[in-house]
């Protein structure tokens, strides 16, 4: 039997707002009356490192998505899409923000940052890959901070939760003065993956 309605893995770099996306998904799922599970990264691993968050909607088991089991891989940074690409289920969707964040290993010249296509091509072999310039769209919406909400908007097309509940949950976690920019960011992200 299928043990979860929708398994989502959200990845990025510490500080990009991965946890907020999962928090909104979880709250919206509760509003929709669906069981929901999430697992997140705290502590040492967070500091500028790779972060991964598991969210399972319509699931009553553990919060952890199996490798090869994610219906959606939401990557807030392109290198992180490949780093955690093994979570994607065959036929799954990877939604990738194309704006890169250079790790210290690259800025100090120890390692090289690969070009975008060489990171995404391996994912295309088994999954659908949707790319968007989420950071740029967030700036258009009025604040670069809302990149994660652009990504949430894009994700909204692929999950079993009605949009109005997602936006209601977003209102619960975003301070009112940023809400307008965040609503705009959500719609821009959603339009981008049409």
């Amino acid at each position, binding site marked *: 039997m299928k043990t979860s309605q929708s398994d989502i893995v959200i990845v990025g770099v510490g500080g990009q707002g991965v946890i907020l996306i999962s928090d909104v998904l*979880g709250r919206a799922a509760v509003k929709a009356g669906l069981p929901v599970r*999430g697992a997140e990264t*705290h*502590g040492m691993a967070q500091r500028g*490192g790779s972060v991964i968050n598991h969210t399972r909607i319509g699931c009553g088991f553990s919060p952890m998505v199996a490798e090869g089991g994610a219906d959606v891989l939401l990557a807030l940074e392109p290198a992180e899409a490949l780093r955690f690409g093994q979570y994607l289920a065959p036929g799954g969707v990877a939604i990738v923000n194309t704006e890169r964040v250079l790790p210290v290993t690259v800025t100090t010249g120890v390692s090289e940052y690969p070009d975008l296509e060489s990171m995404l091509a391996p994912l295309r072999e088994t999954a659908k890959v949707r790319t968007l310039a989420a950071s740029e769209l967030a700036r258009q919406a009025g604040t670069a901070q809302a990149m994660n909400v652009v990504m949430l908007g894009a994700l909204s097309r692929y999950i079993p939760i009605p949009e109005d509940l997602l936006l209601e949950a977003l209102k619960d976690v975003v301070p009112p003065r940023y809400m307008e920019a965040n609503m705009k960011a959500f719609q821009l992200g959603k339009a981008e993956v049409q």
Partner: protein
Amino acid sequence: MREYLLGNVAIARGILEAGCGLASGYPGTPSSEIVESLAPWAGEQGMHVEWSVNEKVAMEVAIGGSWAGTRSVVTMKHVGLNVAADPFMTLAYLGVGGGLVIISADDPYCHSSQNEQDSRRYAQFADIPCLDPADPQEAKDMAIYAFGLSEKLNLPVMLRPTTRVSHARSDVETGTIQKPSQGAGFDKNPRRRVALPVHVRPLHRELLSKQEALAGELESAPWNSLTLRGDHGIIASGISGLYAGEAIARMDLNLSFLRVGTFPPPFELVKKMVEHCNVLMVVEELEPVLEEQVERIALRYNPGLKILGKSSGALPRDGEFDLLQVDNAVATMAGEQTRSAPILPREILPPRPPSLCPGCSHRATYYAMRKAFGRDAVYPSDIGCYTMAVGMGTVDTCLCMGASITVASGIRFGGEERPICCSLGDSTFLHSGLTGLLNAAYNKARITVAVLDNSTTAMTGHQPHPGTGVMATGEATSRVSLEEISRALGAGLVETVSPYDLDAAVQTFRRAREHPGLSVVIAEQACVIGARRSGERRRPFRVRDSCTGCKKCVEFGCPAIEFVDEKASINALCTGCGVCAQICPIGSVEVVE
């Protein structure tokens, strides 16, 4: 009401619903959010909530609360229980007053820890019950149950969430928050409260005789559930029970299944499984605590039973399990197809290890320290954000909280002749560095101690401590001076400097190195995250065209400095600390006006 709660917030909720009146703890991933979530309720509920100086202190404060008749809880991470082990072990002899719950959060895979010890072993060692939750709902419900169990058995009860419970979120059914129990006060009873040999000998016998009652209580606890089906079966505890349950459901297997949430495990239920099955797999992370019990029971009731687990090599004794791993182990036992994850060319990716933040003052402190002491000096260090500076060459050791000063002293007494400069953070210094500094002064250790004072417990999420002048509840309190306490403990030279003033910092470290005895340098600069949260903004810096590409600033390792087209460049992460402008030999880094 159903809410989407973090495991630790759910545990805090359970503590409030149990009418607990006192909570103490020391921050440590993955346990920190429990006390943080309780703090806002302190005023409203009339509950005492504190960040204690360390775990031993926290444990003793909670014991005192319990002995005053108030339901009390103490929280820590698994290695914190080592610090608190002294009161913990004897407490089981003496017993409790109000219900006493000890929360020790384990961290399989060491996501944010120096080891992956298993707290269930400690509970076994102390002869007290341990509850092993699988998810936030169970953790919350167990927290409530634990207080009652503690009072019923007159024993402390351990609740042992793991990272994947404490830092999981799920929809949780919440109940009603109870007004905290107000204890009747301390009841003088030397035979039960004074651990004299003459008192503890009978108390040890009493503790051992309680084990039967304890086992009986846990046998019928709601956290153990048995489903007898086929002659192959699984016994699993904690989150492993959810992995195994999902594997059974996914493959629609006719397996017998026992989920265990209590330690010691339920004897009768395990016996039923052992007698019913021919093949039994035990699924639990870390130590084979459950597996050993199963083996022991099987020896008596079904010696032919094939047991799969850690001993058989079916599952490892280290690290964290994942769903695919458990799914495949179950599939193998059941004769089903195993699955594999896609193999991707991840080797083309640059590593992205966690690192110090842009503008972090620790980076500047270590830069100045290395300049003054040289690459050849010995640099014992400690537990905190600054351990991540291991790549700078100024973190030569990290053992446990507070071990920097003591290990440095021992290295000196062991015959090391080179300069020794150890480092530890302000919270760690107050946690367990003070005794080490006192010992270093008393025994005349010729070392330098650098206290990296960023005025917070940064790594675990910015908790206050006695050096901040603020309590867990936000209330103002006395503020200890790190300089004065260092002098009082006997340090000969004590100086404070801001690491953002690089020249001054280097000069200070040079004086410390030349000092013939014990010296202390307090590198004082607020944590950049804390400063940003409190509204502090500094003008960012930029690199002028005159940059010659010497890479001196790039090698400093700040994530805000990039090397693009043979020149340095400062990106949007710059917090304006200005240290790279002081490193640049030709003045090519300037503030953006």
